[in-house]
Protein backbone atom coordinates (compact mmCIF):
# COMPACT_ATOMS: atom_id res chain seq x y z
CA UNK A 1 0.00 0.00 0.00
CA UNK A 2 1.36 3.31 -1.04
CA UNK A 3 -0.04 5.08 2.00
CA UNK A 4 1.50 2.72 4.55
CA UNK A 5 4.31 4.04 6.75
CA UNK A 6 5.93 3.24 10.03
CA UNK A 7 6.45 5.46 13.02
CA UNK A 8 8.84 4.68 15.85
CA UNK A 9 7.29 4.80 19.32
CA UNK A 10 9.53 7.73 20.24
CA UNK A 11 8.39 9.74 17.24
CA UNK A 12 5.00 10.45 18.83
CA UNK A 13 6.60 13.16 20.98
CA UNK A 14 7.67 14.98 17.86
CA UNK A 15 4.30 14.37 16.21
CA UNK A 16 2.43 15.83 19.19
CA UNK A 17 4.80 18.80 19.25
CA UNK A 18 4.23 19.38 15.54
CA UNK A 19 0.45 19.22 15.96
CA UNK A 20 0.55 21.70 18.82
CA UNK A 21 2.89 23.99 16.93
CA UNK A 22 0.28 23.95 14.18
CA UNK A 23 -2.22 25.30 16.71
CA UNK A 24 -4.19 22.11 17.22
CA UNK A 25 -5.70 20.83 20.42
CA UNK A 26 -5.04 17.12 20.97
CA UNK A 27 -7.78 15.10 22.65
CA UNK A 28 -6.77 11.63 23.79
CA UNK A 29 -7.78 8.97 26.33
CA UNK A 30 -6.50 9.83 29.82
CA UNK A 31 -6.79 8.33 33.30
CA UNK A 32 -7.64 11.61 35.03
CA UNK A 33 -8.98 10.98 38.57
CA UNK A 34 -9.09 7.28 37.72
CA UNK A 35 -11.67 7.78 34.96
CA UNK A 36 -11.05 6.69 31.42
CA UNK A 37 -12.04 9.75 29.42
CA UNK A 38 -10.97 11.99 26.55
CA UNK A 39 -9.12 15.09 27.65
CA UNK A 40 -6.77 17.64 26.10
CA UNK A 41 -3.19 16.39 26.33
CA UNK A 42 0.20 17.95 25.74
CA UNK A 43 2.49 14.98 25.21
CA UNK A 44 2.14 11.25 24.54
CA UNK A 45 3.04 10.68 28.21
CA UNK A 46 -0.37 12.14 29.13
CA UNK A 47 -2.17 9.49 27.10
CA UNK A 48 -3.59 6.58 29.10
CA UNK A 49 -1.75 3.31 28.73
CA UNK A 50 -3.82 0.17 28.31
CA UNK A 51 -7.04 2.06 27.73
CA UNK A 52 -9.17 -0.21 25.61
CA UNK A 53 -11.90 2.37 25.29
CA UNK A 54 -12.98 5.51 27.07
CA UNK A 55 -16.38 5.38 28.77
CA UNK A 56 -17.82 8.32 26.88
CA UNK A 57 -17.45 8.39 23.14
CA UNK A 58 -15.61 10.89 20.99
CA UNK A 59 -18.89 12.36 19.73
CA UNK A 60 -18.65 15.05 22.40
CA UNK A 61 -15.86 16.63 20.34
CA UNK A 62 -18.36 17.53 17.61
CA UNK A 63 -21.67 17.21 19.45
CA UNK A 64 -21.14 18.39 23.02
CA UNK A 65 -23.55 17.45 25.81
CA UNK A 66 -24.72 21.06 25.96
CA UNK A 67 -24.21 23.82 23.44
CA UNK A 68 -25.74 27.21 22.84
CA UNK A 69 -27.51 27.65 19.52
CA UNK A 70 -28.52 31.27 19.88
CA UNK A 71 -28.85 34.07 22.39
CA UNK A 72 -31.20 37.02 22.56
CA UNK A 73 -31.74 40.27 24.38
CA UNK A 74 -35.17 41.73 24.93
CA UNK A 75 -35.78 45.47 24.96
CA UNK A 76 -39.15 47.25 24.79
CA UNK A 77 -40.49 46.61 21.32
CA UNK A 78 -37.53 44.67 20.04
CA UNK A 79 -35.65 41.42 20.15
CA UNK A 80 -31.95 41.26 19.41
CA UNK A 81 -30.79 37.88 18.26
CA UNK A 82 -27.15 36.93 18.56
CA UNK A 83 -25.36 33.96 17.13
CA UNK A 84 -23.07 32.40 19.71
CA UNK A 85 -19.41 32.38 19.01
CA UNK A 86 -18.72 29.06 17.31
CA UNK A 87 -15.97 27.41 19.21
CA UNK A 88 -14.53 24.98 16.72
CA UNK A 89 -10.94 24.72 17.83
CA UNK A 90 -8.70 22.83 15.41
CA UNK A 91 -8.66 19.45 17.11
CA UNK A 92 -6.93 16.13 16.65
CA UNK A 93 -8.53 13.10 18.22
CA UNK A 94 -5.65 10.79 19.04
CA UNK A 95 -5.93 7.15 20.00
CA UNK A 96 -9.66 6.64 19.62
CA UNK A 97 -10.68 3.24 18.28
CA UNK A 98 -11.71 2.47 14.68
CA UNK A 99 -15.30 1.87 15.84
CA UNK A 100 -15.53 5.37 17.24
CA UNK A 101 -13.96 6.88 14.16
CA UNK A 102 -16.66 5.14 12.14
CA UNK A 103 -19.25 6.71 14.41
CA UNK A 104 -18.76 10.15 12.88
CA UNK A 105 -20.29 8.90 9.63
CA UNK A 106 -23.46 7.96 11.47
CA UNK A 107 -23.60 11.37 13.14
CA UNK A 108 -23.04 13.05 9.80
CA UNK A 109 -25.96 11.15 8.29
CA UNK A 110 -28.35 12.88 10.68
CA UNK A 111 -26.71 16.28 11.06
CA UNK A 112 -26.57 16.69 7.28
CA UNK A 113 -29.71 14.81 6.39
CA UNK A 114 -31.75 17.81 5.25
CA UNK A 115 -30.68 20.97 7.00
CA UNK A 116 -26.93 21.14 7.25
CA UNK A 117 -26.09 21.62 10.92
CA UNK A 118 -23.74 24.57 11.16
CA UNK A 119 -22.52 23.73 14.66
CA UNK A 120 -21.68 20.12 13.93
CA UNK A 121 -20.12 20.95 10.58
CA UNK A 122 -17.94 23.72 11.98
CA UNK A 123 -16.42 21.27 14.43
CA UNK A 124 -16.12 18.46 11.90
CA UNK A 125 -14.32 20.81 9.51
CA UNK A 126 -11.69 21.40 12.17
CA UNK A 127 -11.32 17.81 13.26
CA UNK A 128 -8.74 15.22 12.34
CA UNK A 129 -8.75 11.67 13.62
CA UNK A 130 -5.63 9.66 14.37
CA UNK A 131 -7.18 6.38 15.44
CA UNK A 132 -5.49 3.37 17.00
CA UNK A 133 -6.22 -0.16 15.83
CA UNK A 134 -7.35 -2.62 18.48
CA UNK A 135 -4.96 -5.31 19.63
CA UNK A 136 -7.48 -6.61 22.13
CA UNK A 137 -11.22 -6.67 22.51
CA UNK A 138 -13.76 -7.81 25.05
CA UNK A 139 -17.12 -9.54 25.21
CA UNK A 140 -19.00 -6.31 24.57
CA UNK A 141 -17.26 -5.68 21.21
CA UNK A 142 -18.96 -6.62 17.94
CA UNK A 143 -17.52 -4.26 15.32
CA UNK A 144 -17.04 -7.09 12.83
CA UNK A 145 -20.79 -7.82 12.92
CA UNK A 146 -21.66 -4.29 11.81
CA UNK A 147 -19.22 -3.75 8.98
CA UNK A 148 -16.24 -2.56 11.00
CA UNK A 149 -13.18 -4.22 12.37
CA UNK A 150 -10.30 -3.80 14.82
CA UNK A 151 -8.24 -2.27 12.03
CA UNK A 152 -11.01 -0.68 9.94
CA UNK A 153 -10.07 2.64 8.41
CA UNK A 154 -13.46 4.34 7.90
CA UNK A 155 -13.66 7.74 9.57
CA UNK A 156 -9.93 7.90 10.34
CA UNK A 157 -7.51 10.32 8.74
CA UNK A 158 -4.56 8.34 9.99
CA UNK A 159 -4.81 4.87 11.48
CA UNK A 160 -2.00 3.64 13.69
CA UNK A 161 -1.53 -0.05 14.37
CA UNK A 162 0.84 -0.89 17.24
CA UNK A 163 3.89 -2.99 16.31
CA UNK A 164 6.80 -4.20 18.42
CA UNK A 165 8.80 -0.99 18.07
CA UNK A 166 6.21 1.58 17.13
CA UNK A 167 3.29 1.81 14.76
CA UNK A 168 2.22 1.08 11.25
CA UNK A 169 0.64 4.28 10.01
CA UNK A 170 -1.97 4.38 7.25
CA UNK A 171 -2.44 7.88 5.92
CA UNK A 172 -5.99 7.83 4.64
CA UNK A 173 -7.18 11.30 3.68
CA UNK A 174 -6.16 14.83 2.80
CA UNK A 175 -6.37 15.69 6.47
CA UNK A 176 -4.09 12.78 7.25
CA UNK A 177 -1.65 13.91 4.58
CA UNK A 178 -1.74 17.44 6.04
CA UNK A 179 -0.70 16.01 9.40
CA UNK A 180 2.01 13.94 7.76
CA UNK A 181 3.26 17.10 6.06
CA UNK A 182 3.75 18.74 9.47
CA UNK A 183 6.50 16.23 10.27
CA UNK A 184 7.22 14.16 7.16
CA UNK A 185 10.54 12.92 8.55
CA UNK A 186 8.67 10.86 11.18
CA UNK A 187 6.91 8.76 8.56
CA UNK A 188 9.27 6.21 7.03
CA UNK A 189 8.21 3.59 4.49
CA UNK A 190 6.71 0.51 6.08
CA UNK A 191 8.79 -2.66 5.84
CA UNK A 192 7.70 -4.98 3.07
CA UNK A 193 6.92 -7.75 5.53
CA UNK A 194 4.49 -5.66 7.62
CA UNK A 195 1.22 -7.50 7.94
CA UNK A 196 -1.33 -5.38 9.72
CA UNK A 197 -3.87 -8.19 9.98
CA UNK A 198 -1.47 -10.23 12.14
CA UNK A 199 -1.31 -7.44 14.71
CA UNK A 200 -5.03 -6.99 15.28
CA UNK A 201 -7.45 -8.31 17.86
CA UNK A 202 -9.66 -11.17 16.81
CA UNK A 203 -13.31 -10.14 17.00
CA UNK A 204 -15.55 -12.96 15.83
CA UNK A 205 -18.69 -12.11 13.87
CA UNK A 206 -21.58 -12.50 16.31
CA UNK A 207 -24.62 -12.35 14.04
CA UNK A 208 -25.64 -11.85 10.43
CA UNK A 209 -26.50 -8.15 10.36
CA UNK A 210 -28.07 -7.92 6.87
CA UNK A 211 -30.31 -10.85 7.76
CA UNK A 212 -31.22 -9.19 11.06
CA UNK A 213 -32.04 -5.89 9.35
CA UNK A 214 -34.22 -7.72 6.84
CA UNK A 215 -35.99 -9.57 9.64
CA UNK A 216 -36.63 -6.75 12.11
CA UNK A 217 -39.86 -5.37 10.58
CA UNK A 218 -41.49 -8.77 11.14
CA UNK A 219 -40.34 -8.86 14.78
CA UNK A 220 -42.06 -5.62 15.75
CA UNK A 221 -44.72 -7.35 17.85
CA UNK A 222 -42.38 -10.02 19.20
CA UNK A 223 -42.49 -10.69 22.96
CA UNK A 224 -38.69 -10.54 22.77
CA UNK A 225 -38.50 -6.80 23.44
CA UNK A 226 -40.46 -6.95 26.65
CA UNK A 227 -38.42 -9.91 27.83
CA UNK A 228 -35.11 -8.23 27.03
CA UNK A 229 -36.13 -4.92 28.58
CA UNK A 230 -37.50 -6.32 31.83
CA UNK A 231 -34.31 -5.38 33.66
CA UNK A 232 -33.78 -2.09 31.78
CA UNK A 233 -33.85 0.86 34.18
CA UNK A 234 -34.82 3.41 31.55
CA UNK A 235 -31.82 5.67 32.05
CA UNK A 236 -29.89 7.33 29.27
CA UNK A 237 -26.45 5.85 29.93
CA UNK A 238 -26.45 3.73 26.75
CA UNK A 239 -27.47 6.63 24.53
CA UNK A 240 -25.13 9.13 26.10
CA UNK A 241 -22.01 6.99 25.83
CA UNK A 242 -22.92 5.91 22.29
CA UNK A 243 -20.73 7.31 19.49
CA UNK A 244 -23.68 7.39 17.09
CA UNK A 245 -26.70 8.32 19.23
CA UNK A 246 -27.59 11.74 17.98
CA UNK A 247 -30.92 12.62 19.59
CA UNK A 248 -31.07 16.00 21.24
CA UNK A 249 -33.46 18.26 23.04
CA UNK A 250 -33.81 22.00 22.61
CA UNK A 251 -34.10 24.03 25.80
CA UNK A 252 -34.87 27.68 26.30
CA UNK A 253 -33.38 29.48 29.26
CA UNK A 254 -34.30 33.07 29.74
CA UNK A 255 -35.82 35.86 31.74
CA UNK A 256 -37.30 39.27 31.01
CA UNK A 257 -33.99 40.66 29.79
CA UNK A 258 -32.98 37.91 27.45
CA UNK A 259 -31.97 34.32 27.21
CA UNK A 260 -30.46 31.56 25.21
CA UNK A 261 -31.40 28.45 23.33
CA UNK A 262 -29.47 25.30 24.15
CA UNK A 263 -29.11 21.92 22.56
CA UNK A 264 -28.62 19.03 24.96
CA UNK A 265 -28.28 15.29 24.58
CA UNK A 266 -31.52 13.36 24.83
CA UNK A 267 -32.29 9.64 24.87
CA UNK A 268 -35.06 7.47 23.46
CA UNK A 269 -34.93 5.39 26.64
CA UNK A 270 -36.45 8.25 28.63
CA UNK A 271 -40.20 7.96 29.14
CA UNK A 272 -40.69 11.62 28.24
CA UNK A 273 -38.84 11.38 24.96
CA UNK A 274 -41.97 10.78 22.90
CA UNK A 275 -44.54 12.24 25.29
CA UNK A 276 -46.94 14.39 23.29
CA UNK A 277 -48.42 17.65 24.53
CA UNK A 278 -51.80 15.89 24.52
CA UNK A 279 -50.53 13.47 27.15
CA UNK A 280 -50.43 10.57 24.69
CA UNK A 281 -47.17 8.64 24.56
CA UNK A 282 -46.69 6.43 21.51
CA UNK A 283 -43.92 4.54 23.33
CA UNK A 284 -45.53 4.12 26.71
CA UNK A 285 -43.44 1.22 27.98
CA UNK A 286 -39.74 0.52 28.39
CA UNK A 287 -40.20 -2.44 26.05
CA UNK A 288 -41.37 -0.10 23.28
CA UNK A 289 -38.49 2.25 23.98
CA UNK A 290 -35.91 -0.53 23.99
CA UNK A 291 -37.31 -1.85 20.70
CA UNK A 292 -37.04 1.64 19.27
CA UNK A 293 -33.38 1.80 20.23
CA UNK A 294 -32.66 -1.43 18.36
CA UNK A 295 -34.85 -0.52 15.38
CA UNK A 296 -33.44 2.96 15.00
CA UNK A 297 -29.94 1.60 14.69
CA UNK A 298 -30.59 -1.55 12.70
CA UNK A 299 -33.74 -0.86 10.68
CA UNK A 300 -34.54 2.84 10.42
CA UNK A 301 -30.96 3.99 9.82
CA UNK A 302 -30.34 1.52 6.97
CA UNK A 303 -33.71 2.41 5.52
CA UNK A 304 -33.23 6.14 5.66
CA UNK A 305 -29.50 6.70 5.35
CA UNK A 306 -28.20 3.50 3.76
CA UNK A 307 -25.93 2.80 6.73
CA UNK A 308 -26.16 1.42 10.24
CA UNK A 309 -26.60 3.48 13.37
CA UNK A 310 -24.30 1.22 15.36
CA UNK A 311 -20.55 0.66 15.16
CA UNK A 312 -20.33 -2.28 17.58
CA UNK A 313 -18.06 -0.49 20.07
CA UNK A 314 -19.86 -2.04 23.06
CA UNK A 315 -19.78 1.18 25.10
CA UNK A 316 -23.50 0.88 25.88
CA UNK A 317 -23.02 -2.62 27.24
CA UNK A 318 -20.10 -1.59 29.43
CA UNK A 319 -21.88 1.51 30.73
CA UNK A 320 -25.21 -0.16 31.44
CA UNK A 321 -25.89 -0.55 35.17
CA UNK A 322 -27.82 -3.78 34.47
CA UNK A 323 -25.72 -5.21 31.64
CA UNK A 324 -28.13 -4.75 28.75
CA UNK A 325 -25.73 -6.48 26.38
CA UNK A 326 -26.49 -5.23 22.88
CA UNK A 327 -24.48 -7.91 21.09
CA UNK A 328 -26.30 -10.63 22.96
CA UNK A 329 -29.70 -9.01 22.42
CA UNK A 330 -29.08 -8.66 18.69
CA UNK A 331 -28.03 -12.28 18.53
CA UNK A 332 -31.28 -13.24 20.28
CA UNK A 333 -33.25 -11.18 17.78
CA UNK A 334 -31.37 -12.90 14.95
CA UNK A 335 -32.38 -16.26 16.34
CA UNK A 336 -35.94 -15.38 17.37
CA UNK A 337 -38.70 -17.34 15.65
CA UNK A 338 -41.30 -14.65 16.20
Amino acid at each position, binding site marked *: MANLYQLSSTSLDALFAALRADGRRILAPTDRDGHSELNPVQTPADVARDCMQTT*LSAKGAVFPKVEQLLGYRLAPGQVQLADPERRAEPTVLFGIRPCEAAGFQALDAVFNWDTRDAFFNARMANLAVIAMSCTRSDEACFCTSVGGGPGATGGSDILLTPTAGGYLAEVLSDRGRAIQALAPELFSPAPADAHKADLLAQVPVAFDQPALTAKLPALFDSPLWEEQSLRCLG*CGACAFVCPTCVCFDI*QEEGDKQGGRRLRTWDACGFSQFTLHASGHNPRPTQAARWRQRVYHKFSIYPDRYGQLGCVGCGKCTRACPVDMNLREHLLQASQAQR
Partner: protein
Amino acid sequence: MDVNEKAKQLLEAGTVQAVAGFQTGTRGVRRPVFLRRAEDTGRMVFDPGCRQNLAQYATRTPVKRLGRLALTLRPSGIRALLQLMAERQIQEPDVLALAVDPDGQVTELATAEAMEAHLALTADPIPAEDQALMDRLDRMTRAERWAFWRNELSRCIKCYACRSSCPMCYCGQCTMDCNRPQWVPPPSHGLGNLEYHMVRAMHLAGRCVRCGDCGRACPVGIPIHLLTFHTEAAVQAQFGQRAGASAKLDYALSTFRPDDQETFIR
Protein backbone atom coordinates in the same frame (compact mmCIF):
# COMPACT_ATOMS: atom_id res chain seq x y z
CA MET B 1 -31.01 -24.12 50.71
CA ASP B 2 -29.23 -22.02 48.10
CA VAL B 3 -30.83 -19.47 45.76
CA ASN B 4 -31.46 -21.95 42.96
CA GLU B 5 -33.05 -24.55 45.21
CA LYS B 6 -35.16 -21.91 46.94
CA ALA B 7 -36.29 -20.36 43.67
CA LYS B 8 -37.21 -23.75 42.28
CA GLN B 9 -39.19 -24.61 45.38
CA LEU B 10 -41.06 -21.30 45.40
CA LEU B 11 -41.93 -21.45 41.70
CA GLU B 12 -42.97 -25.10 41.84
CA ALA B 13 -45.19 -24.47 44.84
CA GLY B 14 -46.64 -21.36 43.23
CA THR B 15 -45.73 -19.31 46.32
CA VAL B 16 -44.49 -16.65 43.92
CA GLN B 17 -44.88 -16.18 40.18
CA ALA B 18 -41.39 -14.76 39.63
CA VAL B 19 -38.01 -14.71 41.34
CA ALA B 20 -35.68 -11.76 40.89
CA GLY B 21 -32.10 -12.87 41.21
CA PHE B 22 -28.74 -12.62 39.51
CA GLN B 23 -27.00 -14.41 36.72
CA THR B 24 -23.60 -13.98 35.15
CA GLY B 25 -23.52 -11.55 32.25
CA THR B 26 -20.91 -9.84 30.11
CA ARG B 27 -17.31 -10.03 31.31
CA GLY B 28 -18.45 -11.85 34.43
CA VAL B 29 -20.62 -9.01 35.74
CA ARG B 30 -23.71 -10.04 37.68
CA ARG B 31 -26.97 -8.85 36.27
CA PRO B 32 -30.61 -9.15 37.28
CA VAL B 33 -32.78 -11.94 35.94
CA PHE B 34 -36.47 -12.64 36.46
CA LEU B 35 -37.27 -16.32 36.51
CA ARG B 36 -40.81 -17.56 36.06
CA ARG B 37 -40.34 -21.28 35.55
CA ALA B 38 -38.85 -23.76 37.98
CA GLU B 39 -36.85 -25.40 35.19
CA ASP B 40 -34.99 -22.13 34.49
CA THR B 41 -33.56 -21.81 37.98
CA GLY B 42 -30.19 -23.58 37.78
CA ARG B 43 -28.04 -20.65 36.70
CA MET B 44 -28.76 -18.11 39.42
CA VAL B 45 -25.84 -16.83 41.47
CA PHE B 46 -25.54 -14.84 44.65
CA ASP B 47 -22.05 -13.78 45.62
CA PRO B 48 -20.20 -10.57 46.54
CA GLY B 49 -20.39 -9.52 42.87
CA CYS B 50 -24.18 -9.31 43.11
CA ARG B 51 -24.33 -5.73 44.25
CA GLN B 52 -27.47 -4.37 42.69
CA ASN B 53 -30.43 -3.68 44.94
CA LEU B 54 -33.18 -5.70 43.28
CA ALA B 55 -35.82 -4.06 45.49
CA GLN B 56 -35.83 -1.37 42.85
CA TYR B 57 -37.84 -3.66 40.58
CA ALA B 58 -40.59 -4.14 43.18
CA THR B 59 -42.25 -0.89 42.09
CA ARG B 60 -41.84 -1.32 38.32
CA THR B 61 -45.01 -2.03 36.37
CA PRO B 62 -43.66 -4.69 33.94
CA VAL B 63 -42.19 -6.62 36.87
CA LYS B 64 -45.25 -6.19 39.09
CA ARG B 65 -47.32 -7.60 36.26
CA LEU B 66 -45.48 -10.91 36.56
CA GLY B 67 -47.25 -11.56 39.85
CA ARG B 68 -45.97 -12.04 43.35
CA LEU B 69 -42.24 -11.54 43.35
CA ALA B 70 -39.48 -13.11 45.45
CA LEU B 71 -36.22 -11.18 45.53
CA THR B 72 -32.73 -12.25 46.54
CA LEU B 73 -31.51 -9.38 48.66
CA ARG B 74 -28.65 -7.96 50.65
CA PRO B 75 -29.54 -6.07 53.82
CA SER B 76 -29.93 -2.80 51.91
CA GLY B 77 -32.50 -4.50 49.68
CA ILE B 78 -34.53 -5.65 52.65
CA ARG B 79 -34.29 -2.16 54.04
CA ALA B 80 -35.56 -0.80 50.74
CA LEU B 81 -38.61 -3.09 50.78
CA LEU B 82 -39.47 -1.95 54.30
CA GLN B 83 -39.05 1.68 53.37
CA LEU B 84 -41.24 1.14 50.29
CA MET B 85 -43.88 -0.39 52.56
CA ALA B 86 -43.58 2.56 54.94
CA GLU B 87 -44.09 4.87 51.97
CA ARG B 88 -47.05 2.76 50.86
CA GLN B 89 -45.53 1.87 47.49
CA ILE B 90 -45.75 -1.88 48.01
CA GLN B 91 -47.67 -4.07 50.38
CA GLU B 92 -46.40 -6.96 52.43
CA PRO B 93 -48.09 -9.67 50.32
CA ASP B 94 -46.65 -8.29 47.04
CA VAL B 95 -43.11 -9.45 47.75
CA LEU B 96 -41.16 -12.21 49.40
CA ALA B 97 -37.72 -11.18 50.61
CA LEU B 98 -35.01 -13.81 50.36
CA ALA B 99 -32.09 -12.94 52.59
CA VAL B 100 -28.91 -14.62 51.44
CA ASP B 101 -26.19 -15.07 54.01
CA PRO B 102 -22.46 -15.04 53.20
CA ASP B 103 -22.31 -18.81 52.68
CA GLY B 104 -25.17 -18.66 50.18
CA GLN B 105 -27.98 -20.00 52.36
CA VAL B 106 -31.37 -18.43 51.83
CA THR B 107 -33.79 -17.37 54.53
CA GLU B 108 -37.35 -16.52 53.58
CA LEU B 109 -38.60 -13.35 55.19
CA ALA B 110 -42.31 -13.55 54.53
CA THR B 111 -43.48 -10.67 56.68
CA ALA B 112 -42.34 -7.16 57.39
CA GLU B 113 -41.86 -8.23 60.98
CA ALA B 114 -39.47 -10.98 59.91
CA MET B 115 -37.59 -8.51 57.72
CA GLU B 116 -37.30 -6.04 60.60
CA ALA B 117 -36.06 -8.77 62.91
CA HIS B 118 -33.52 -9.92 60.33
CA LEU B 119 -32.18 -6.41 59.82
CA ALA B 120 -31.89 -5.81 63.53
CA LEU B 121 -29.45 -8.74 63.70
CA THR B 122 -27.53 -8.02 60.51
CA ALA B 123 -24.52 -5.78 60.24
CA ASP B 124 -24.85 -3.39 57.33
CA PRO B 125 -21.87 -1.07 57.51
CA ILE B 126 -20.90 1.54 54.97
CA PRO B 127 -18.20 -0.07 52.79
CA ALA B 128 -14.72 0.88 53.99
CA GLU B 129 -13.82 2.61 50.73
CA ASP B 130 -16.92 4.81 50.89
CA GLN B 131 -16.38 5.55 54.57
CA ALA B 132 -12.81 6.60 53.84
CA LEU B 133 -13.94 9.03 51.16
CA MET B 134 -16.73 10.37 53.40
CA ASP B 135 -14.21 10.95 56.17
CA ARG B 136 -11.92 12.70 53.73
CA LEU B 137 -14.80 14.93 52.63
CA ASP B 138 -15.69 15.68 56.25
CA ARG B 139 -12.13 16.82 56.92
CA MET B 140 -12.16 19.21 53.97
CA THR B 141 -12.91 22.89 54.35
CA ARG B 142 -16.17 23.99 52.81
CA ALA B 143 -14.26 25.49 49.86
CA GLU B 144 -12.35 22.26 49.27
CA ARG B 145 -15.53 20.23 49.41
CA TRP B 146 -17.21 22.60 47.00
CA ALA B 147 -14.26 22.22 44.61
CA PHE B 148 -14.38 18.44 44.94
CA TRP B 149 -18.07 18.23 44.05
CA ARG B 150 -17.85 20.84 41.35
CA ASN B 151 -15.11 18.83 39.69
CA GLU B 152 -17.00 15.57 40.07
CA LEU B 153 -20.33 16.99 38.92
CA SER B 154 -18.74 18.58 35.88
CA ARG B 155 -18.53 15.01 34.54
CA CYS B 156 -22.26 14.46 34.93
CA ILE B 157 -24.03 13.91 31.61
CA LYS B 158 -27.52 13.76 33.12
CA CYS B 159 -28.23 10.28 31.91
CA TYR B 160 -30.20 9.87 35.16
CA ALA B 161 -28.73 6.41 35.78
CA CYS B 162 -28.43 7.41 39.45
CA ARG B 163 -32.12 8.20 39.64
CA SER B 164 -33.19 5.22 37.55
CA SER B 165 -31.16 2.77 39.63
CA CYS B 166 -32.42 4.06 42.98
CA PRO B 167 -35.02 1.86 44.69
CA MET B 168 -36.42 4.90 46.44
CA CYS B 169 -36.80 6.93 43.22
CA TYR B 170 -40.09 5.40 42.17
CA CYS B 171 -42.09 8.47 41.17
CA GLY B 172 -43.98 7.94 37.95
CA GLN B 173 -43.07 11.44 37.00
CA CYS B 174 -39.99 12.95 38.52
CA THR B 175 -39.85 16.67 39.30
CA MET B 176 -36.71 16.74 37.16
CA ASP B 177 -38.82 15.87 34.13
CA CYS B 178 -41.57 18.34 34.89
CA ASN B 179 -41.68 20.98 32.18
CA ARG B 180 -44.89 22.77 33.08
CA PRO B 181 -43.42 24.52 34.96
CA GLN B 182 -39.80 23.59 34.55
CA TRP B 183 -38.35 23.57 38.04
CA VAL B 184 -34.83 22.45 37.22
CA PRO B 185 -32.88 23.18 34.02
CA PRO B 186 -32.57 19.91 32.06
CA PRO B 187 -29.22 20.65 30.36
CA SER B 188 -26.18 19.12 32.02
CA HIS B 189 -24.40 22.42 32.44
CA GLY B 190 -23.08 23.51 35.81
CA LEU B 191 -26.35 24.82 37.21
CA GLY B 192 -28.46 22.00 35.75
CA ASN B 193 -26.19 19.35 37.24
CA LEU B 194 -25.91 21.03 40.62
CA GLU B 195 -29.63 21.59 41.03
CA TYR B 196 -30.43 18.05 40.00
CA HIS B 197 -28.00 16.44 42.42
CA MET B 198 -28.94 18.78 45.27
CA VAL B 199 -32.61 18.00 44.81
CA ARG B 200 -31.85 14.28 44.68
CA ALA B 201 -29.71 14.41 47.82
CA MET B 202 -32.39 16.32 49.73
CA HIS B 203 -35.19 14.14 48.45
CA LEU B 204 -33.36 11.06 49.73
CA ALA B 205 -32.46 12.59 53.09
CA GLY B 206 -33.61 10.03 55.63
CA ARG B 207 -34.90 7.76 52.84
CA CYS B 208 -31.63 6.47 51.39
CA VAL B 209 -31.15 2.78 52.21
CA ARG B 210 -27.41 3.03 51.49
CA CYS B 211 -27.28 0.39 48.80
CA GLY B 212 -24.90 2.57 46.78
CA ASP B 213 -26.55 1.65 43.48
CA CYS B 214 -26.61 5.25 42.26
CA GLY B 215 -22.84 5.49 42.55
CA ARG B 216 -22.31 2.11 40.88
CA ALA B 217 -24.73 2.99 38.08
CA CYS B 218 -22.97 6.23 37.22
CA PRO B 219 -21.23 5.57 33.90
CA VAL B 220 -18.68 8.33 34.46
CA GLY B 221 -17.81 7.24 37.99
CA ILE B 222 -19.09 10.10 40.16
CA PRO B 223 -19.34 8.89 43.80
CA ILE B 224 -22.83 10.34 43.86
CA HIS B 225 -24.03 7.91 46.52
CA LEU B 226 -21.98 9.75 49.11
CA LEU B 227 -24.37 12.70 48.95
CA THR B 228 -27.36 10.59 49.89
CA PHE B 229 -25.33 8.57 52.42
CA HIS B 230 -24.50 11.89 54.01
CA THR B 231 -28.05 13.27 54.13
CA GLU B 232 -29.30 9.93 55.43
CA ALA B 233 -26.73 10.02 58.22
CA ALA B 234 -27.72 13.59 59.07
CA VAL B 235 -31.38 12.65 59.46
CA GLN B 236 -30.42 9.63 61.51
CA ALA B 237 -28.30 11.80 63.78
CA GLN B 238 -31.00 14.45 64.18
CA PHE B 239 -34.06 12.24 64.50
CA GLY B 240 -32.65 8.89 65.60
CA GLN B 241 -34.34 7.08 62.77
CA ARG B 242 -32.80 5.05 59.99
CA ALA B 243 -34.49 4.58 56.62
CA GLY B 244 -36.08 1.17 56.19
CA ALA B 245 -35.83 0.16 59.84
CA SER B 246 -39.52 -0.64 59.88
CA ALA B 247 -42.51 -0.95 57.57
CA LYS B 248 -44.35 1.56 59.74
CA LEU B 249 -42.10 4.54 59.74
CA ASP B 250 -43.16 8.15 59.81
CA TYR B 251 -40.86 10.09 57.56
CA ALA B 252 -38.89 12.39 59.80
CA LEU B 253 -38.95 15.35 57.46
CA SER B 254 -42.66 15.40 56.71
CA THR B 255 -44.29 14.30 59.94
CA PHE B 256 -46.30 16.66 62.07
CA ARG B 257 -47.32 15.77 65.59
CA PRO B 258 -49.17 18.16 67.88
CA ASP B 259 -47.16 16.83 70.81
CA ASP B 260 -43.80 17.43 69.13
CA GLN B 261 -41.20 18.45 71.67
CA GLU B 262 -39.99 21.29 69.44
CA THR B 263 -41.98 24.48 69.92
CA PHE B 264 -41.33 25.96 66.47
CA ILE B 265 -43.45 23.36 64.75
CA ARG B 266 -46.72 24.30 66.48
